[in-house]
């Protein structure tokens, strides 16, 4: 099983509760804004502690049964909605921030080719367009040698043409690297195009 998630968390007035298992290449969390999709990703990444539940990815227990791995030990490749590039580091340093030296790990060269980042390496994040920043964010996540990817509305701030370009990149990553991907979106068309399994989240 790629993703086995059963968590609940009270955040102020809202109660987030979700339970799903999926073995698809891309699993989509689909639901309206404010339904807690990002919080679910944060819980899987270890950035937000669930009140209770169990999280396992690829058969590896990340949370539950008195296990609670810190984020740095979860091997998640998290691509945030806003890219969240480090503003004080150039693109190259952003890409290499979590880079793994492990044998067989994906290299900078491979990521640059896969995502077409060659011309951006010496730029500062604030000079990038939304689509460029999102590509760098995906590359940075891949270079950390993750066991799975968490993509939080990576197309949300992009115009149609840019969104289509990134969607193509994600398909390329899905087919080339065979990493389990959890994809958060409120856009039906994206979800239909990418995902093998859709989990609906209700408010």
């Amino acid at each position, binding site marked *: 099983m790629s993703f086995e998630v059963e968590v609940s968390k009270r955040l102020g007035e809202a109660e987030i509760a979700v339970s799903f298992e999926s073995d698809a290449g891309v699993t989509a969390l689909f639901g309206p804004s404010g339904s807690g999709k990002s919080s679910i990703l*944060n819980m899987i*990444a*270890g*950035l937000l502690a669930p009140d209770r539940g169990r999280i396992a990815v690829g058969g590896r227990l990340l949370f539950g049964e008195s296990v609670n791995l*810190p*984020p*740095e030990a*979860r*091997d*998640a*490749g*998290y691509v*945030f909605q806003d890219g*969240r*590039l*480090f*503003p*004080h*580091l150039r693109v190259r340093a952003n890409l290499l*921030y*979590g880079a*793994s030296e492990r044998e067989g790990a994906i290299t900078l060269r491979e990521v640059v080719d896969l995502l077409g980042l060659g011309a951006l390496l010496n730029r*500062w*994040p*604030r000079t990038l367009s939304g689509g460029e920043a999102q590509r760098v964010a995906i590359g*940075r*996540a891949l270079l*950390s040698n993750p066991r799975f990817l968490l993509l939080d509305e990576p197309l949300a701030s992009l115009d149609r043409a840019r969104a289509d370009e990134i969607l193509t990149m994600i398909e390329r990553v899905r087919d080339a690297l065979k990493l389990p991907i959890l994809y958060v979106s409120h856009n039906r068309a994206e979800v239909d195009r990418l995902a093998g399994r859709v989990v609906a989240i209700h408010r």
Partner: protein
Amino acid sequence: MTLTPDDWEVIRLSLKVAVVGVVFTLPVAFALAYVLARGRFPGRILLDAVVHLPLVLPPVVTGWILLILFGRAGPIGGWLDRVFGVTLMFRWTGAALAAAVMALPLMVRAMRLSIEAVDRRLEGAARSLGASPWRAFRTITLPLSLPGVWAGLVLGFARSLGEFGATISFVSNIPGQTRTLPIAIYTALQLPDGDDIVLRLAIVSVALSLGALIASEWLVRRQGERAHVL
């Protein structure tokens, strides 16, 4: 305008006192700023108030408190004397301590604002990329809060150069040891023919303060490319 050897002694001493005071305060101020910006613990408000005390107390009172604590018979001063043979009373080191205590709140304020402005979600991103909390602090939080560190350093330095009340009540007015620029100017004002000295040292004060401001502006600009948040 030519400066006399006495003037130079005052300038050298003032710079030494301010630089030493600020350099030793820097890590303390940053640690306090970090704790006040991020920490949630009982007593935080009290700590905040104590750090700010030198800003609102009459400086003479701060100096008197230092005298009580760090005098030879005082709880800290006595211990320093017994264990290390160090005495701060009537020494330039005491002047540096007074400068440091007076500069502390300004430095903490500047650094704290800067730490609070760091987007904590960036630290989360660093953690998810495999960084330990310490590495995330070193590579993300610290560099992104550097503008506030520079601002704090300059403010603290300027405040230290101008320190008068706490210094004169703690370590008095001793040429070559504790007679810094403001105290030398005050001393010259008491002299019937001190006008020239006052003028010269006042010009030096303005020049040093301007220089510090321009240097900080330059430092912030030089790293501006990196310092700006998206």
